[in-house]
């Protein structure tokens, strides 16, 4: 079979570091080929070489039967390769059509022929069954719609090979389903799709073949029929995944009691939210991001003022207390955005680990932080969570750690506080499977010790795997509550979209 694209023995070295080691990859017409692998496995490097953003150290790219060299993305686009980046590159003030035709506008005597452009976009949208309002302004489009604009843009530019980089990371479950359908449609009409992702479930739904990368090498190229999620995970991680520990049943007194919590700014961001987290319980909060979860976490941890309502932690009223006071009362917090809230990137691992410990009696004596004693503790974390800190160890800059390792450091720091209550917001976002296992295991262990955890995650699989009870947030309110035994992905999805679930304990407390 003749392939549309072949990459043969692609190798890319950065100094002594080999990012891609003889990676071979092929793509047929009408095929969906997924590339999966953990962070740092070399997926990005491979795609950057395909898109002309990096030059391979050795290896060939063959398009049809011709060897090609791309000096930049323009060359790749000319040859029919289009890339949809994880972060969209759109002009919010422009319309959908303008964003799609930009750079290749239909023109007459130097004037932009708007009508023709709109017509072209409509045709394209019908041809590939990608619904979009061609004249809407992009800033008013949802994330899913913006992604469609990006896909239409590469189609308009004449791409036969479409690279989708982590396309589902930012989408709601419903949008994910639509996207997977779009991918199938594209393949049916003869386009080839390269899907870069770490979500194996989606891969199994849509890919024809799957190439797994680990440590810059291909560990397997398999067709969907002959593999399953577990096999893929094994190829990615290089070992068997462990089962989570058993959940121990515990007698459960209330730990965090939230009553009618309301946060208003220009509009009501959090509306009369009430719930309880008990000792020995993980309460999961599901919801499309932007439905009040951030505001809830910030109000709980003292980073935002609550307009109404009360928060009691371990029986003590902590409503609108300072962050330091709430933390002293017994809260630790894995923040939702590790770069914005959780680290100082230009400081060392040690300095980042010290946050919250600098005035603890164990590490503070006669006006001085006891650095050596604290370093011992951090070394313990590094060992327990297998944090890869790089050559400078604790003095390495936090910004140089990979996302997963940095997240493990933050998790270790917050668990190390040994507080009865923990907020875990998106604890495994952008983290590879290995790190995810560590973090999930640590959370379950904390629960089994009798501590309470509020888990906020946009990954339903994570919510389902860890939570004892699930609350779904929609438009600043709690739209429904499901016990672990009755929760399914479908029920949660419906609640997340503002629907109601028959038979669920709808706000019954």
């Amino acid at each position, binding site marked *: 079979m003749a392939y549309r694209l072949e990459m043969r023995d692609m190798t890319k070295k950065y100094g002594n570091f080999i990012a891609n080691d003889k990676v071979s990859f092929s793509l047929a017409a009408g095929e969906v080929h997924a590339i999966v692998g953990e962070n740092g496995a070399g997926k990005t490097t491979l795609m950057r070489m395909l898109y002309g953003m990096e030059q391979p150290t050795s290896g060939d790219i063959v398009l049809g039967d011709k060897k090609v060299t791309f000096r930049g993305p323009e060359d790749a686009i000319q040859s029919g390769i289009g890339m949809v980046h994880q972060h969209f590159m759109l002009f919010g003030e422009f319309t959908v059509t303008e964003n799609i035709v930009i750079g290749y506008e239909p023109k007459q005597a130097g004037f932009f022929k708007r009508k023709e452009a709109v017509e072209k976009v409509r045709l394209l949208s019908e041809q590939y069954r990608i619904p979009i309002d061609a004249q809407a302004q992009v800033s008013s489009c949802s994330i899913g719609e913006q992604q469609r604009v990006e896909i239409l843009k590469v189609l308009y530019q004449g791409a036969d090979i479409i690279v989708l980089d*982590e396309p589902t990371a930012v989408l709601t479950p419903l949008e994910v389903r639509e996207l997977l359908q779009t991918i199938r449609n594209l393949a049916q009409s003869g386009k080839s799709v390269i899907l870069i992702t770490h979500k194996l479930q989606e891969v199994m739904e849509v890919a024809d073949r799957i190439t797994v990368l680990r440590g810059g090498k291909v560990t397997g190229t398999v067709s969907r029929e002959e593999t399953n999620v577990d096999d893929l995970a094994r190829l990615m991680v290089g070992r068997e995944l462990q089962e989570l520990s058993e959940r121990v049943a515990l007698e459960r007194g209330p730990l965090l009691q939230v009553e009618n919590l309301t946060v208003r700014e220009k509009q009501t961001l959090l509306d009369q939210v009430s719930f309880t987290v008990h000792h020995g319980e993980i309460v999961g909060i599901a919801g499309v991001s932007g439905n009040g979860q951030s505001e809830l976490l910030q109000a709980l941890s003292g980073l935002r003022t609550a307009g109404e309502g009360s928060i009691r932690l371990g029986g003590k009223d902590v409503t609108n207390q300072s962050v330091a006071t709430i933390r002293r009362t017994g809260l630790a917090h894995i923040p939702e955005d590790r770069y914005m809230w959780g680290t100082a990137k230009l400081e060392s691992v040690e*300095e980042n680990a010290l946050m919250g410990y600098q005035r603890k009696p164990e590490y503070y004596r006669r006006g001085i932080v006891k650095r050596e004693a604290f370093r011992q503790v951090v070394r313990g974390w590094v060992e327990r969570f297998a944090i890869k800190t790089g050559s400078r160890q604790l003095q390495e800059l936090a910004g140089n750690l990979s996302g997963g390792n940095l997240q493990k450091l933050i998790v270790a720091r917050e668990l190390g506080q040994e507080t009865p209550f923990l907020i875990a917001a998106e604890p495994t976002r952008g983290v590879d499977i290995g790190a995810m296992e560590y973090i999930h295991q640590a959370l379950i262990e904390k629960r089994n010790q009798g501590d309470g955890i509020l888990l906020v995650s946009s990954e339903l699989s994570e919510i389902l795997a860890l939570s004892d009870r699930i609350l779904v947030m929609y438009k600043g309110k709690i739209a429904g509550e499901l016990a672990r035994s009755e929760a399914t992905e479908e029920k949660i999805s419906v609640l997340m979209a503002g629907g109601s679930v028959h038979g669920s304990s709808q706000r019954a407390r």
Partner: protein
Amino acid sequence: MAAVKELGKSLVQPLLAVVIGLLTGALVIAAVGESIVGTYQEMWKGAFGSFYFFTSTLARATPIMLIALGLSLAFRAGVFNLGAEGQMVLGAISATLVAVYLPAPGMIKLVAAILTGMAVGGFWALIPGFMEARFRIPLLISTLLFNYIAVLFASYLVTEPFRDRTGSAALSQTVMLDKSVWLPKLFAGMSVHAGFILAIIAALVLFWVIRYTPFGYEVKMLGQNPLFAQYGGINRIKVMLTGMFASGGLAGLAGTVEVLGAHYRFVDGALTVPNFAWTGLMATLLANSNPIGIIITSILLAAFQTGAMGVERNTDVPLELASVIQAVLILFISAKFSYDWWKKRKTKGGESHGAA
């Protein structure tokens, strides 16, 4: 060892800026038609050429160093205190008045004057701090404007109520201080005084505070990522106000030791004309807010100024040569600022590729 390495690293870039500054100065000298080597020799002699000149350089470095140390603390916390001039002048006039009018023995009067100078300078810096905390008035603007209030108010005080009317009285100045409250000179007949020792001690204390205390840690983290600091339970307002007070206090001390160790009276304009405050700002930027580095950069910048005086005495190159070199320094330091900012932005953008 790590400290030495950090210091060395923070000095590479400023040294480069100094070299480029000197090269630009060379162009100016050539344009005037003087010998480049000869002029720089004169400059060296003027700054370090004899023990007398060397100690004059140290004396000039003293207030610059104290101001720079104060600013470095504020900068590390991510707070822009541009009000050092006002804090220095107000501290100095208050210290002078205490030294003149407090009915107490000399030694106590001296200590009281120094403490007053620091407290008033610190207090003057606290007001914009409160304004920022309470009303979100940007420190950058308020501290800058507070300079005018302080300098003009001090000027009024020595022109009207506290003017020395005993002497020829042409100048706006207070009466001469009693000898018992003078800061001692370090060497007989030389201008460097005990204030220099105070400045060195201040640098060491600041170095220690930043490196080893929780407060130093909090200041640093606040400067690096205010949201992270807040999330970790650091009280931004408390740290900011403490930083402003210390910063203003050191500026007040700078003005105080200049009065008690060099002028022995408050003379209107004597602290503002030599541009101590802005040279101090430059010394901080040049040393990348490293307290030990500031000792070096303050002496260096003072040397340019005393050296340029030597140049003017002995050649046809004007005093402004020092200004040219300093201007180039500023240019290169700000270039570094924008470069760092650009680099930070770039790494932030680069994260988008981290997930695959």
